[in-house]
């Protein structure tokens, strides 16, 4: 989306043009494919485990998001954000341990 550019105009015609710009970026399609895969994985997990277990564990995506941001987008993660990610991981560990 950084390639597509920031959205400042929220009129319908401008939004349609924005969507057309977005679908021409190859990265978008890889992202959409991965999100589809994530959705069906979520469905599969929900068929096995309780929702009060599955959804909190998906908070691990904050850790994955931070790593992905460094590797692919070369963003700088502030120490405070790392602290937050570490606390999320600790929370997920507790939820994981609560599995029967």
């Amino acid at each position, binding site marked *: 989306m950084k390639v597509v550019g920031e959205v400042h105009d929220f009129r319908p015609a401008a939004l349609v043009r924005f969507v057309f710009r977005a679908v021409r970026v190859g990265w978008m399609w890889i992202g959409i494919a991965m999100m589809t895969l994530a959705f069906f994985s979520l469905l*599969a997990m929900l068929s096995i485990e*309780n929702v009060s277990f599955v959804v909190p564990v998906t908070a691990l995506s904050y850790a994955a998001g931070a790593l992905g941001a460094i590797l692919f987008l070369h*963003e700088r993660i502030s120490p405070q954000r790392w602290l937050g990610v570490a*606390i*999320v991981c*600790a*929370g997920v560990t507790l*939820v994981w341990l*609560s599995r029967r």
Partner: protein
Amino acid sequence: MKDSPGLQVKTYVLIFFIVLFAPLGNVLLSKGMKGVGSAKNWVPGDIFHILASIIASGYIWLGIVCLLTFFVAYMLVLTWADYSYVQPASSFSYAVVAMLGYFLLGETVPTLRWMGIFVICVGVFIVGHTHPRTTEKA
């Protein structure tokens, strides 16, 4: 513009939608998938049969509608409110999903899990409270 009472109310209403509809959507997906059968017993040959029963499940579609409602509310609120304000506020949805699982689906939620969810909320709150832009503008 930020301080206008109308916008404040709109922000609170949309954040309420976010913390309600995202968990509700996931709870409905869970309810639907429990009817489809456990993925532990899935075999590759059955994939079309499984997909068909997923598509035929009313709970799944209701769940998808809830998640779309959440997504629209999320994008709407982000058009005027700061991400660093919206994201920590939406961390409550982890607590809401456990509550809905407990009350609507009758799931047992052990104390350890409640503690874990609380810790996750704190972590997400801290992640969201950092500066939203760290890269130079191109």
